[in-house]
């Protein structure tokens, strides 16, 4: 690690042992919900500190309080030992706190320099700024071309813009919210080098993540939250991933019963030379995709976000139809030109990535959300064009009971459910039909560990009972947990599906980076690495 000190006042002010940031007894109430309940957090300069917890544990609330986006109901924040009130993010930035959000706020149609200039106060001289961007990004091993359009950049490169934007403000504390969720393993490695370099220079890093292996590797200290309370302050180097997970979720996660993964059943879902152009300038075209999913197996499509996953899902579900009928076959029947309704009638079921706005409608009660996908398939919910509300409510109640959808009204609007419960509903809605073919996209995205384990178990059970399950996911742990075979999508091209046992995360990382795309690129990649 480099120990060269770029900031002159570092070291003099932050005497060793003194905290750069301390938050004491932070309480934040949202109505009756105690999102943060008496939480303490302290960071020393030069430390990489992990903030761990499940969804809903209160991590985001705590971080927003530190970044000035929320005000605590009670409790006090200290900056370099002095009590401060951080009334807004601008005030936080003035103190020297930088934050990289999980969802980037970048303008696709502007260049890297223009985007950064928008975020910096009083930055008029774009040429000088471009120069600084180039220096800083090269310095920290985050190569960026200042003149590139954001629309042309990969997700990893977009994240670099956000990191470089923070670095230009010479932060004393850098907060990163799940930074590796969108990165390939190689890109993540590169980010870790940068963070270690920053810490070596005395900058404190608050690192929010679900990925325990990363935390063990990178972080010096960890604060673990559960249900809004502080449950442990541990040294991650001394813990195992399992013991960290136990702190986070309280109980041990149910081990998955996957049974024998021998898939020799009939092919139920076949894609052959599936190509589809995109009309969206920021979309990804599908290029000659081949895949077979057999009865009894779970096949996963891995890949970094934005490599054609949504387009692939839409092409299989029939929301976008292809020119050739033979490109998609369900149970042997060519249906590339059929609508989603016709494909559902061929015993296929689909669960898209977005819960609200795609799989379900926020303002409609659950029973009507059930009608969304059940109107087409032969049951009592819709007959002769008339909706049988009683039947819809009955099926909804059955789904809710069987899939443990927790709700406080008998038939609440979808928006009233928490993310995990709504996800259990939209998955359960399809599983209730016992479909022969199930295609799911990000089945446990943003869902807590308990619900995620339950959903994954349901998918495995579905396959073992003879269905073909295709899962598109960005979560490698999830993929290795339940997939029998794994294919990787990169820039609209899909690799061959390999048996899960034959693939290591490193090999998948290489596939994600596109080694399967065109033979010629292999050399190029090798040279880069």
């Amino acid at each position, binding site marked *: 690690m480099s120990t060269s000190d770029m900031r002159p006042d570092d070291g003099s002010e932050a005497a060793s042992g003194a905290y750069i940031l301390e938050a004491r007894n932070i309480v934040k109430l949202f109505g009756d919900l105690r999102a943060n309940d008496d939480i303490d957090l302290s960071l020393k300069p030069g430390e990489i500190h992990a903030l761990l917890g499940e969804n809903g544990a209160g991590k985001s609330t705590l971080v927003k309080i530190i970044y000035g986006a929320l*005000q605590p109901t009670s409790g006090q924040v200290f900056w370099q030992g002095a009590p401060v009130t951080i009334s807004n993010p601008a005030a936080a930035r003035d103190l020297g706190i930088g934050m990289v959000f999980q969802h980037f706020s970048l303008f696709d149609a502007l260049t890297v320099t223009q985007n950064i200039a928008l975020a910096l106060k009083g930055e008029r001289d774009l040429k000088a700024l471009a120069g600084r961007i180039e220096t800083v990004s090269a310095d920290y091993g985050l190569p960026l071309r200042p003149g590139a359009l954001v629309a042309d950049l990969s997700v990893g490169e977009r994240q670099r813009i956000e990191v470089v934007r923070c670095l230009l403000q010479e932060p004393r504390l850098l907060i990163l919210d799940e930074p590796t969720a969108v990165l390939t393993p190689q890109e993540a490695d590169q980010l870790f080098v940068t963070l270690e370099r920053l810490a070596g220079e005395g900058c404190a890093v608050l690192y929010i993540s679900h990925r325990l292996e990363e935390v063990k590797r990178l972080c010096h200290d960890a604060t673990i939250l559960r249900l809004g309370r502080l449950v442990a302050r541990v040294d991650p180097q001394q813990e195992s991933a399992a013991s960290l997970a136990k702190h986070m979720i309280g109980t041990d996660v149910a081990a998955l019963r996957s049974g024998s993964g021998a898939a020799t059943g009939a092919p139920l879902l076949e894609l052959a030379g599936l190509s589809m152009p995109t009309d969206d300038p920021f979309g990804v075209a599908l290029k000659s995709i081949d895949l077979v999913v057999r009865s009894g197996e779970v096949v996963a499509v891995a890949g970094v976000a934005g490599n054609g996953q949504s387009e692939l899902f839409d092409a299989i*579900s029939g*929301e976008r139809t292809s020119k050739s009928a033979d490109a998609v076959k369900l149970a042997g029947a060519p249906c590339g030109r059929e*609508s*989603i*309704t016709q494909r*559902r009638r061929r015993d296929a079921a*689909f669960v*898209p990535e*977005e819960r609200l*706005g*795609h*799989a*379900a*409608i*926020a*303002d*409609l009660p659950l029973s*009507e959300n059930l*009608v*969304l*996908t059940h*109107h*087409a398939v032969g049951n009592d919910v*819709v007959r002769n*064009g*008339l*909706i049988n509300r009683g039947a819809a409510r009955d099926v909804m109640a059955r789904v809710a009971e069987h899939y443990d959808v927790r709700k406080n009204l008998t038939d*609440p*609007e979808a*928006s*009233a459910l928490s993310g995990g419960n709504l996800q259990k509903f939209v998955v359960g809605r399809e599983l209730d039909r016992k479909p022969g073919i199930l295609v799911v996209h990000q089945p446990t995205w943003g869902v807590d560990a308990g619900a995620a384990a339950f959903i994954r178990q349901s998918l495995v059970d579905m396959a073992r009972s003879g269905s073909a399950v295709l899962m598109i996911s960005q979560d490698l742990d999830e993929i290795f947990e339940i997939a029998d075979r794994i294919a990787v999508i990169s820039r609209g091209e899909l690799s061959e599906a390999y048996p899960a046992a034959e693939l290591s995360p490193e090999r998948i990382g290489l596939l994600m980076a596109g080694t399967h795309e065109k033979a010629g690129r292999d050399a190029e990649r090798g040279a880069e690495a």
Partner: protein
Amino acid sequence: MILRLERRSQRSTLMAFLSPLLAIGLTLALGAIMFVALGFDPGKALYIYFIEPLTSAWSIEEVVVKAAPLILIGVGLAVCYTANVWNIGAEGQLTMGALVGASIPIYFPDWQSPLVLLLMLVLGIAGGALFAAIPAFLKNRFSANEILTSLMLVYVAQLLLDWLIRGAWRDPDGYNFPQSILFEGWQVIPPLGDGRVHIGAIFAVVAVIIVAFMMGRTLRGFEIRVIGTSPRAGSFAGFKGKRVVLFCFMLSGALAGLAGICEVAGPSGQLQPHVSPGYGFTAIIVAFLGRLNPIGVFFAGVLLAISYMGGEAVQVELGISDKTTQVFQGMLLFLILACDTLIRYRIRLVSPGR
């Protein structure tokens, strides 16, 4: 202290019901201020405006005559707006329905048979529906904004009517007045009883019932609601947005066309340069005031019909311009849209700084 809007976790059913009443209350209060500013006793003016129309059999009948077209058009527009399809051109569809339906008595003045009336109604409906299909086609084919196209087509329809009525369709014995021959016998819609109320009022009630059933119970109604709230979820459900656009436009056009032919074959009894006093535009307010709900549209239609009567009454009795009708209608639409915010949000008083 500052006011802040806070999002509610669920739609407030109470506010969905109270919002139109609140808007009506605020409209009356602002109306009172307007009358004071004009130098009139606000109590008396509001009485003449809103209560007096309900005090005589004649004026109640007149309210029904005016409410019928407002409700007919209003339920159609309510379906459109539920689907997020912005048909602003009901006035033009009404004019086109009236014009096409009236062509029968104008070209065959001596034909007398029940078939004539039936044919006039069918042509009125077809005229409105096909005219409304134009903006639907332009939207589906070229992504043309339907608010602009449907509104501009209003003037096309009105100018076409004007041209015909001053030219080919002018009554040869009409002393050069721009109007058609008077319709008679089976060319006129039979009245209910001996007043001016005619069968059109029944059409309005039937339309309310059918549309209420369609929206609440059928898959078609569900499709319209889904496409209106979330086109992406609608496409996932297998519903086709373009089909919904065409259906909504043609349904509301058909109802507006029916209102149009009922107007010329009913109270007017002939084609004149102005078929309606702006029913097609006022029905936009009716649809929103009625919560885009057919039953609500029924009551809103009656209320707006009273406002037309009130405008005439204050003109006669107090000498105030009948433009007050439009002022009241405008305030009502503005306030109803503002009050609707409270269904999704609540108002909180917060002290600044914290």
